[in-house]
């Protein structure tokens, strides 16, 4: 009888020890695996160029005409392990008013990130995905789900060339928060 009891205790110990060791190995393994998995979170895996990017000559844009979409071609872009030269990282809508002031909007819809089009017919920006609408000056129109207007991009003019500082912002919030 005492033997059975001893055997039972021994087996209970073995069970606990076995599960304990298995649990320990699993726990030890999960730390590096989790760090590995979460590495890209909060890190810049695809870089956006910091410096302003040349998109067009001031004279190439007709004053007062409808906005034009121009690609943002960047160099030295890091995409995880790659270094890319002359790649399109996005596009912007450029317009010049009669006074010659140049404005640029990011073509990324502030709603959920589709690419916004300009409609000649209604003379406003329209997003093809969920029908967000923005006036020609970028302000949000009442119809459509976007929570803010189009995101303006910083424009500088050097030697008659238009340079745009490309940025991306968090989508679907009222504030403008760079990512």
């Amino acid at each position: 009888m005492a033997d059975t009891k001893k055997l039972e205790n021994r087996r209970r110990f073995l069970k606990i020890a076995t599960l304990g060791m298995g649990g320990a190995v699993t726990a030890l393994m999960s730390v590096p695996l989790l760090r590995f998995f979460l590495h890209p979170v909060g890190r810049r895996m695809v870089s956006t160029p910091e410096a302003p990017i040349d998109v067009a000559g001031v004279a190439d844009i007709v004053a007062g005409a409808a906005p034009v979409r121009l690609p943002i071609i960047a160099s030295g872009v890091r995409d995880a392990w790659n270094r890319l030269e002359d790649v399109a990282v996005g596009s912007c809508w450029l317009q010049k008013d009669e006074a010659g002031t140049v404005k640029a909007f990011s073509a990324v819809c502030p709603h959920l990130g589709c690419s916004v089009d300009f409609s000649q017919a209604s003379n406003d920006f329209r997003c093809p995905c969920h029908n967000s609408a923005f006036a020609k000056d970028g302000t949000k129109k009442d119809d459509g789900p976007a929570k803010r207007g189009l995101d303006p991009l910083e424009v500088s003019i050097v030697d008659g060339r238009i340079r745009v500082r490309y940025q991306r912002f968090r989508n679907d919030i009222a504030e403008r928060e760079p990512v």
Partner: protein
Amino acid sequence: MLKRVGDWFDERTGYRQALEKALDEDVLGGARFAYVFGSVLVFLLLLQMTTGIFLAMYYSPSSSDAWASVAFVQDQVSAGWFVRGLHSHGASAMVIVAGLHLLQAALFGAYKKPRELNWIIGVLMLGILLGFALTGYLLPWDQTGYWATQVATGIAGTSPVIGQQVQQAMQAGNGYGNLTITRFFALHVFVLPAALVGLTFVHIALFRKHHQTPPWWLDEKQLKARSQPFWPDQMFKDMVAMALVFAIIVAFNFHTHGASLDAPADPSTAFDARPEWYFRALFQGLKYFHGIFEVIVALGAPVVVGGVLLALPFVDKGPDRSPSKRVPYLAVLGVGVALVAALTLISMREDADNPEFAKAQAKAHASATKARELAKEFGVPPAGGAAVFTLEPGYRGRQLFLRDCDGCHVGNARKGPEIIEGYNSRRWIADLMRNPAAPRFFGLTKLDDMKPVTIEGQDFDALVELVYSQTGDPLVDKALVAKGQTLFDEGSCSDCHSIDWETEGEVGPNLGKRGSPAMLQAFIVQPGHPRWFGERNEMPANAGKYSDDELHALVDYLIGLRSLSPVTE
């Protein structure tokens, strides 16, 4: 609470009964450490699958991306080196433990009736393991993997009659490229795992059907009397072994800081590759055979080894499992193991005693370090892993130099002053002043008539410092420069040279800004300018030959030489 959740699931799945059935098995003769190898292999298989799946989240199977993505994992991703190292060392552990598993099974006579089929399945699984090793070795697309695998597919190519077809099927085409890597990748992560997991299930199912092979030295009664339940008695021992193997792999992984990663595969280089250690015996064995025999051994050895193992249950058919009754069969296995061990050791030994190999290794290591540093700092161009070297500062300039300047300024066929490491350093300037007509300097040109400077001591240093200061290096001794200027003006230097950039048409070249970026650029474009060598110049002018970028790159390269120590005197 936990119990109620358990009940809920049990009612709907009956998992408790299934679990009981899975764990409830009597181990005849008692639990033993001799039986742990199979469980350890299951553990290692899970470890390989887990680390493999995680690695696949970063790995990119293409000839232009593979190395870069692996270098990214190794040098940049959090715990990347650790996960990759576990996968690599885990593979080695699997080969070792599988070998021990096979030897244990052989010793206990586990291949005998009714377990022949499970023995055969085990041998096939061992073959699959080696398939994993072969395909996995290539995936990083580094020098070692690339060249070692070339040998493996090359061996396949020597097969009789269909060799070419076999080789082309393996490497997917006439040579190594994107399709080779996608093919190896698909085999490594889809085909082989599916095959191995499937066979593992069959292997375990058959094992459960026939149970473990009990010790031969116990009779039926003793076996029954000493039997213990699999759970927890055997499982505990299994778990101790798993934890131990895990600890060893982790410790080894820290020791090696993960798996090695060589420089990116470069078909244009020579590389002294070695296969993974478990193919070393075959690698070494092949060295002893030549011509047709090499082919026979390369293809025949694996067939013979596999054939012997597969045939074992059908040759040794007697019911007695006592090793003393099976000496000839076990001796064959023993000789095989000893042969493999001996060849492996000889191979390692030969490498250790080979200074040429050590040199090649050191060179490969330096190249790998350089490539990985560049990849980490700049990223890898989409052209592929080896293109990372083009990002090295000075690379473009060096290429231009090699193309246009090297012929006259480096080596024995030189026509002008030697331009190598140390060019325009203080030491170089001092040597030039002491012996301007030496072949290193102007001895091979028409400009060999300058008299050696004979001033000694600090005055000489002052003159050297003055000339060196013209390079624009801010780290100069200003007092010494001023002293040098006085000596220059008052002594015989100024008879032939100016040092102001403006004066032209003197006997010797104007030394103003000598060795500075501005001077080098202008000089390369027009060395015969009256400021320098004028009529007596022999170097071709390069006006209009280079773009501004190219000229900058070339000059950067020349200036970079200054701070490098000279290779030759």
